[in-house]
């Protein structure tokens, strides 16, 4: 199980032929206590880079972008009901959506964990 990352602090993880998406632990820490999450509906399609979700913390409201193009297959209702999960387990239980990719080669453009760690430290 390899985690990949975007420059906008989303993580992507392969699960069968789907990709699970969430925001990174680093992003969650920077945001502070998350108080609200808005996720897209299942069935919606996005192009890589589109606004896909919104995360609101006590500090700021931030857009979450689609890390790859594709269709939303499943949405994590639990994280909407309990946004605190993002601060507790951003990389696990607080996943946002599962995407069926329309262009799987987009995955190649994402960063691996080491590259993201370096990117996050220097941004």
């Amino acid at each position, binding site marked *: 199980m390899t985690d990949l990352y975007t420059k906008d602090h989303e993580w992507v993880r392969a699960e069968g032929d789907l990709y699970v998406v969430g925001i990174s632990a680093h992003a969650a820490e920077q945001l502070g*206590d998350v108080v609200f999450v808005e996720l897209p509906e299942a069935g919606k399609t996005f192009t890589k880079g589109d606004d896909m979700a919104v995360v609101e913390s*006590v*500090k*700021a409201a931030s857009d979450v972008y689609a890390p790859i193009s594709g269709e939303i297959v499943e949405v994590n209702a639990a994280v909407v009901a309990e946004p605190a999960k993002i601060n507790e387990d951003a990389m696990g239980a607080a996943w946002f959506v599962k995407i069926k990719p329309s262009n799987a080669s987009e995955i190649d453009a994402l960063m691996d964990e080491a590259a993201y760690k370096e990117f996050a430290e220097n941004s």
Partner: protein
Amino acid sequence: MTVNPQAPPTFTGNKALQIEEALSFEIGGFDRTGVDFPPAEDRPNRLGGLGRDSDIGLPGLSEPETMRHFVRLSQKNYAIDMGPFPLGSCTMKHNPRLNEKIARLPGFADLHPLAPQACAQGALELIDTLAFWLKELTGMPAVAMSPKAGAHGELCGMMAIKAAIDARGEGDKRTRVLAPESAHGTNPATAVQCGFTVEEIPGDATGRVDLAALKEKLGDDVAAIMVTNPNTCGLFERDIRAIADAVHEAGGYFYCDGANFNAIAGKVKPGDLGVDAMHINLHKTFSTPHGGGGPGAGPTVLAQALAPYAPAPYVVRQDGEYHLVETPSAESFGRLTAFHGQMGMFTRALSYMMSHGVDGIRQVAEDAVLNANYVLARLKGEMTPAFEGYCMHEALFDDRFLKDTGVETIDFAKAMIDEGYHPMTMYFPLVVHGAMLIEPTESESKRELDLFCDALLSLAKRAKAGAAEAFKAAPVYSPRRRLDETAAARKPVLRWTPAKAAE
């Protein structure tokens, strides 16, 4: 000053002049009232079964209890009349008492909005005179006076832009609006409200719009660009003419967010910068009270290209008489408000303008910029400015100076409360890490600024000396300590319920 750490608790919970105050529901009774009504005459009930079948449930208090309740609550509040209010982007300047005197003249204060126009000539003339000077100061040919806040003015300007684009037959084609990543949140919200999609323009290393990146995003599907100048980093957009030209060349309009007009009023006319529409916050630049002290007002100036689409009503002068034109023209996008705008703010804003004169307004802008640069210069030894160079009306710092101290921006702000200050704007603009945006305004004297800067310098030094624990505990001296903002946002309790009171 020494504080006795063993200050004993008091029986009442009060601390001298800091008086604890319960909710009106908790101190009031349901069996009494501060007003005695004569018994109702015996009349037939005409409510047709729609009469209330239970008690209304509002607590009754006597007149002195009511007065004390609200005065005590007001004393827990911070106000511009108490001290500096350095909220960046908000322009919390002094509200001159002359404004209040003029606004209370019975001819203005007691006028009914539906009074016959023949009885309201003075009020209509005042609206027209204020409109004239707003157009004069901005170099724009038209102004819509009815918007009631900054964001409402944005809506007015963007609706005029939408109407102009629709009139050109390009409504389906021009669907994108561009806004810098440092924009006020209301900019993208307004654009979306008008049916546009919003794209961010990245900033450059100096904190300004990246002109090359903007040009790349322009095209025949761009309706408008929304830019604040000076921007939310407190910096003048030096490329503003080039930005305007590029947008116009691409067939789009230039909306300028006028929230920071205070820094340039009397110095620069936005019309000369190529602006097509801009709102003016009377409650910032023209000193009318806001932030809990009164309603806003956001008159919106329009260039010739957008003037035909302005909303009704508006005032015209004809044969020596003033008329309020209530019927929108065929091209107008319609009507934003029931009446003609915030009359009480118009009287205050014109009073401010007249008492300052054009040279005075110019000096206001100069002093506001001077004060901000004084704060920047005094603090930059201990705190870290977000960008190099001079600022305009507000000084922006990031949290690099707090790195590895364990103190965060929010802790620093809370510690300012103990020093007797309202904190600066925090965590905005979003493009700056742990942002602290300080706008002193022209109202503060050098003595006041020095005390403020000394207090911040002392806090910065304490933070670096390893006082993280004390910062995390702040504020100590406020009526309430650190509130749980997270719980308030996640599980808001918005309504008092009797069951809770019984607990």
